[in-house]
């Protein structure tokens, strides 16, 4: 009897109206974008896109999803209403990752093979500028005020600071080996850059451009080489950052003030990118090797579910 009561109670608790949100995951090896219902945490459908989809971002009005399809050298535009590719944008060759400028009109795209950042005007669907950066550009970030765009180049091990208005390189900062991702703090005062090979995150002051701190990740029982910092996400309040640790199968929660690792979440294999829900209560990781995404309940500090989505999940975005 108690089991039945507990079971019914649990159903009640599980069926609390969760925020109506949808998770989009790019499956690098399936050439699809998986659509996962946030309330039931189950796969709804998949959308066919171009070849090798990786970086993704929502339009400012959250009605369209941009998907960088590297092997087709373009960006697919998915209409989230009918869940179909309804348009394409030029991107320069092999786009891996990009950001949408806060003005909603431009994309800044990293062209991995050409050592360029391309600026794409969304409305006219034209490349309106290119910026020379280091070898193998990948990580992209834009400050909240829209003034700066940061780009990391994997082989040069640098982060390049670009003026988003004039498309000029403002500064180049040396970082740890193979920088994968960059993120501005919400107030724009800090720039975080993750290093895949060193397993570190370096923190810069955006005004003085001096290094102000470094986070070294360690996972008990996993060799140093197995701990690689890749995708990052910063909470809106700026107090917490989340870092995917790749082959360590963990996501680290970092206190942005003390730079201390608060806890490690066990997720699927090789998480590439992580994303926060709109209410900041949930984090989702895209796990490249195990072909699933993991939902982390940040209030209860636990991983609640891992959902298979396809082969090679890479990018992850949460929309309405």
């Amino acid at each position: 009897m108690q089991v039945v009561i507990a079971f019914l109670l649990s159903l009640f608790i599980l069926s609390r109206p969760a925020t109506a949100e949808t998770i989009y995951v790019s499956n690098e090896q399936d050439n699809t974008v998986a659509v996962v219902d946030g309330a039931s945490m189950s796969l709804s459908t998949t959308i066919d896109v171009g070849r090798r989809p990786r970086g993704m971002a929502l339009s400012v009005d959250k009605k369209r999803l941009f998907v960088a399809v590297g092997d087709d050298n373009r960006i697919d535009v998915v209409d989230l209403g009918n869940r179909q590719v309804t348009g394409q944008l030029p991107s320069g060759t092999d786009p891996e990752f990009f950001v949408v400028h806060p003005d909603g009109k431009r994309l800044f795209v990293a062209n991995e093979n050409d050592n360029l950042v391309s600026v794409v005007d969304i409305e006219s669907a034209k490349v309106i500028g290119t910026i020379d950066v280091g070898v193998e550009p990948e990580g992209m970030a834009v400050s909240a005020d829209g003034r700066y765009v940061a780009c990391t180049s994997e082989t040069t091990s640098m982060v390049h600071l670009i003026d988003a208005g004039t498309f000029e390189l403002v500064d180049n900062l040396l970082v740890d080996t193979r920088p994968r991702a960059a993120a501005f703090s919400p107030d724009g005062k800090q720039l975080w850059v993750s290093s895949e090979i060193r397993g570190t995150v370096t923190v810069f002051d955006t005004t003085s451009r001096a290094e102000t701190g470094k986070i070294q990740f360690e996972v008990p029982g996993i060799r140093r080489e197995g701990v690689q910092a890749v995708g990052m996400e910063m909470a809106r309040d700026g107090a917490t950052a989340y870092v995917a640790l790749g082959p360590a199968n963990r996501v680290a929660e970092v206190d942005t003030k003390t730079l201390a690792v608060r806890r490690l979440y066990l997720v699927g294999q090789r998480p590439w990118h992580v994303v926060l829900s709109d209410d900041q209560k949930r984090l989702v990781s895209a796990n490249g090797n195990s072909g699933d995404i993991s939902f982390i309940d940040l209030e209860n500090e636990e991983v609640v579910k891992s959902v298979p989505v396809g082969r090679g999940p890479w990018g992850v975005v949460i929309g309405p």
Partner: protein
Amino acid sequence: MRKRHAMRALTGILHREMLRTLRQRGRLLSAIVRPLVWLAIFAAGFRSVLGLSITPPYQTYVLYEVYVVPGLAAMMLLFHAMASSLAMVYDREMGSMRLLLTAPLPRWYLLAARLLASVIVGLPLVYLFLLIARHWDVRPPVLGYLAVFPALVLSGLMLGAFGLLVSSISTQMENFAGVMNFVIFPTFFASTALYPIWRLAEAGPVLAMIAAWNPFSSAVELIRFTLYLNFDPVSALVVLACFVVFFLAAVVGYDPGRGLWSRRGGDG
């Protein structure tokens, strides 16, 4: 059998079990230390052993500590059941068992009361262990602690009835100590307490089959599922059926007229 009489007998037996358990400080201590040693030391070496697969009722990847806790809770019940039936053999050698069985109540009732008393006395330690396990980040839902109660009772009864059966067959205490080693270790190791079936299947289909058919596995899975607010009807039925079978066999075993007792020439 009058109701009041029956209740008095039950409370009497329960009281005796409780007194005896509380007086055995060493046994109490070892009962709680044993699973903690497994959790803190044994499980530490296997932390990431399950990282490759999601085993129901878990919905995501879990560390080995999380996986092994329900198995260790069942292990506590198993050890407790065996220790309790060891006490039964002792009672029989000392003659207090004969005294109990001469009470004007049905033998099955006295044995059931003895069994129930033993299970109830053993449960607080299991809960203590589950609470301490939170330190290792084994944190099932709060309601799971409530839901697991009937599962623990049923599993405890099944294992207790099994112990009762073993004690009815065994002739002396020395004999029984040997039986314990031959019973506890195979029961525990060839089950899903330490490794999920798919992991055992890697080692060999025979081992996987033994574990799948081992009623102790069903007890472990019943505890595991209910602790995470799931229900596994197959495990529940297996545990219930095994309890009935073991208990009936034990009742027959304790029959001075018909059972093995008479063949051995009565008490002791």
